[in-house]
C-alpha cells in the first residue's frame, strides 16, 4: 500500500466537503435500514419460535361450510385412544371484542383443577394468586395497565352473548419469555371462558393433541382425519411455517423497497460520478500530466471508496443495532407485528446472523466501489487533453 496515495485520498475526502458527507450519510442510512429490516425479521422469527415451542403438536378443529365450528369435547376421548397420543385436551378459547381499544382479546379457558395447568400458570405469571373457579383472570401486563386506567380497579366486566355482564377479578399478569402472543391474552377457568364466548356446554373450540414421538405426528394427524371428514388438523410445524412465511413476506416487501432504493442510490451515485464533473476531470488530467499513472489514480479512488464504504458500513451496523436493540425498532416493529393498541412491550432477542451482515456488505460496498472506480478509470483513460 502506498501511504502517500492514501494520504492524498483522505485529503481528497476532506477537501470535497459538500460531496462526500452526502454520499456517506445516504449510504449509511441505506445500509442501516436494510440491516435493521433483516435483524428485526431474524429477531422476530426467534421470538415467534419461543412462543411456538409451547404449542401442542396437533390442534384438531371442526370445519363445517368452510368455517370453524365448536367441536364436541367427547371427541378427545376417541383421539386419546389412538396409538402414540399422550394427551388430547379440549380447549376453550376465542376472541372477545374490546371496543374501547378497538381490538380483540384472546380469551383462554384452562382446567384449574389440573395440577399441570396450575404448575404452568405459576411459572408464567407473577403476583401469583391462584386462579379460582368463576372468580378471576390472568392477563397481559399492558392490558392490565390499560384496564386499571379505564376502570381504576383490578377487575374486568365481560359482556356475554345474552347481554348480561360477568365481572372477574384480575389475579395476576404474565411474565412469559415471549409476550408476543400473551400480550392480548386473558386466561380464566373453562366455564367462565365458555360463558364469555358463548360456547355451549359439552363443546370446545378445538382439541390440543400431544404425541409421544414427534416422528409420529403426521401419522397421528392422518388417523384423526379418519375419525370424521369434518375434522381439520393443524400441526405445530405448519403454524411455525406460517409465522416464518409471514415474516419472510413482510421482510420481502421491505427487501423490494430496499433494492429499489439501492438501485436508485447507485444510479444517482453513478450519474454524479459519470457526469461532467469538471473539477474532478481536471484534477485527474493534472495528476496524469504530473506523472501519475491510471493505476495511481485508481488506487486513490479505491482508497476513497473503501474509506467511505467501510465507515458507512460500520456506522450502519452500529446504527441498526442501536435502532433495533436499544430503541426497540420504533416504526418497523409495528409493521412486522401489526398495529394494535396492545403493542407487546417485549425486547427483541439479540440475533447476529453473519450471513446477513456479509450479504448486505457484498451488495452495497463493492457495488459502491465499482460506481466510483469505473467512471474514474474512464476519466483517467481519456482526460489527457482536458487541460492546457
Amino acid at each position, binding site marked *: 500500500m502506498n501511504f502517500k496515495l492514501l494520504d492524498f485520498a483522505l485529503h481528497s475526502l476532506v477537501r470535497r466537503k459538500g460531496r462526500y458527507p452526502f454520499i456517506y450519510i445516504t449510504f449509511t442510512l441505506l445500509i442501516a435500514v436494510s440491516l435493521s429490516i433483516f435483524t428485526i425479521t431474524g429477531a422476530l422469527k426467534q421470538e415467534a419460535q419461543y412462543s411456538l415451542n409451547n404449542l401442542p403438536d396437533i390442534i384438531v378443529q371442526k370445519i363445517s361450510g368452510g368455517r370453524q365450528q365448536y367441536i364436541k369435547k367427547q371427541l378427545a376421548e376417541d383421539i386419546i385412544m389412538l396409538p402414540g397420543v399422550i394427551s388430547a385436551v379440549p380447549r376453550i378459547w376465542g376472541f372477545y371484542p374490546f371496543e374501547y381499544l378497538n381490538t380483540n382479546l384472546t380469551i383462554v379457558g384452562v382446567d384449574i383443577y389440573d395440577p399441570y395447568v396450575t404448575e404452568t400458570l405459576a411459572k408464567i405469571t407473577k403476583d401469583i394468586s391462584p386462579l379460582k373457579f368463576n372468580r378471576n383472570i390472568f392477563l397481559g401486563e399492558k392490558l392490565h395497565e390499560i384496564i386499571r386506567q379505564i376502570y381504576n380497579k383490578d377487575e374486568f366486566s365481560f359482556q356475554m352473548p345474552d347481554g348480561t355482564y360477568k365481572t372477574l377479578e384480575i389475579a395476576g399478569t404474565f411474565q412469559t419469555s415471549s409476550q408476543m402472543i400473551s400480550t392480548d391474552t386473558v386466561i380464566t377457568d373453562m366455564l367462565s371462558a365458555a360463558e364469555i364466548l358463548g360456547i355451549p356446554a359439552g363443546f370446545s373450540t378445538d382439541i390440543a393433541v400431544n404425541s409421544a414421538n414427534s416422528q409420529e405426528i403426521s401419522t397421528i394427524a392422518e388417523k384423526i382425519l379418519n375419525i370424521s371428514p369434518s375434522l381439520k388438523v393443524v400441526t405445530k410445524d405448519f403454524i411455525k411455517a406460517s409465522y416464518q412465511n409471514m415474516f419472510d413476506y413482510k421482510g420481502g416487501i421491505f427487501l423490494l423497497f430496499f433494492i429499489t432504493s439501492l438501485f436508485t442510490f447507485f444510479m444517482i451515485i453513478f450519474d454524479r460520478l459519470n457526469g461532467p464533473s469538471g473539477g474532478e476531470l481536471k484534477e485527474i488530467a*493534472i*495528476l496524469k*500530466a*504530473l*506523472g*501519475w*499513472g491510471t493505476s495511481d489514480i485508481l488506487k486513490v479512488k479505491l482508497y476513497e471508496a473503501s474509506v467511505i464504504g467501510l465507515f458507512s458500513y460500520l456506522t450502519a451496523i452500529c446504527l441498526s443495532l442501536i435502532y433495533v436493540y436499544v430503541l426497540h425498532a420504533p416504526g418497523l416493529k409495528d409493521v412486522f407485528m401489526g398495529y394494535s393498541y396492545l403493542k407487546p412491550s417485549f425486547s427483541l432477542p439479540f440475533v447476529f446472523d453473519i450471513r446477513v451482515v456479509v450479504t448486505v456488505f457484498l451488495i452495497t460496498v463493492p457495488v459502491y466501489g465499482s460506481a466510483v472506480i469505473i467512471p474514474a478509470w474512464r476519466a483517467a483513460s481519456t482526460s*489527457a487533453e482536458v487541460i492546457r
Partner: protein
Amino acid sequence: MIKVVSVTKTYTTGTDKITPIKNFNLRVNEGETVILQGSSGSGKTTLLNMIAGLIKPTEGSVEVAGRNVSKLPEHFAAEFRRETAGMIFQQFHLIEELTAGENIALPLAPSSLSRQEISDRVNMLTEKLLIKNIIDVPAGKLSGGEMQRTAIARALVNSPSIILADEPTANLDGTLTEELLNIFRSLKSEGKTIIIATHDPVISGSDIADKIIHLNKEV
C-alpha cells in the same frame, strides 16, 4: 535529445477530423531551449503533450532520451513523465485546496521516495524559488506570482531533464514574465532542456531561445 519524426496527429470528433500537426519533424538537443510559436490551433499543446507521452501521434514517432515515448504503454509513459519531464501549464493548474507545499510534492506521491526525501526536495525548491514562506498556504489563496512559482517548483520537484511549458506567460504581467524568464535562464544554465509553447513576443524575443519553431495551422 528529443526527436520528433514525421509526426501527424488527427483528432476525430464524430464525423469531423482535425489534424493540428501533419508530418512534423523536430530535433532538440540536450540543454537546448526551443520556442514553439504559432497561432491557436496550430498544434503547440498537442506537440508538448506528445513529447510528454500524454497522447500518442497518429503517425510517426517521438523519441526522448533514446526512448520511443509514442510507443510506451500507459504505465511506463506515466513513469517517464514522473522521471524525465516537468510540465508548466498556462493556468498553473494547482489544486486549490492543497497547500503550496502539497501541490509541489504531488508528482512524487506515486514514487518510491520517502516522505522525508520528498519534504527535503520541496524545501530545497521553495528556498530556491523564494516561496518558503507560503509552503503551508492553500494554493487558492496565493497571488498570481506565487502560483506561478509554485507551479514551476512542482514541475521541477522530480528533477526532470526536460521542461515543457505551455503558454507560461499567458496570465502574467510584465514583471512576472521577466521573473519567469530569469527562472528559465537559471534552468537553462543547469543544463535543462526546455521547450516553451508561446506566442508571447517577450519570450520569443528573449535571449533564452536557442531555436524558434513556427507551427502553421493545418487545414
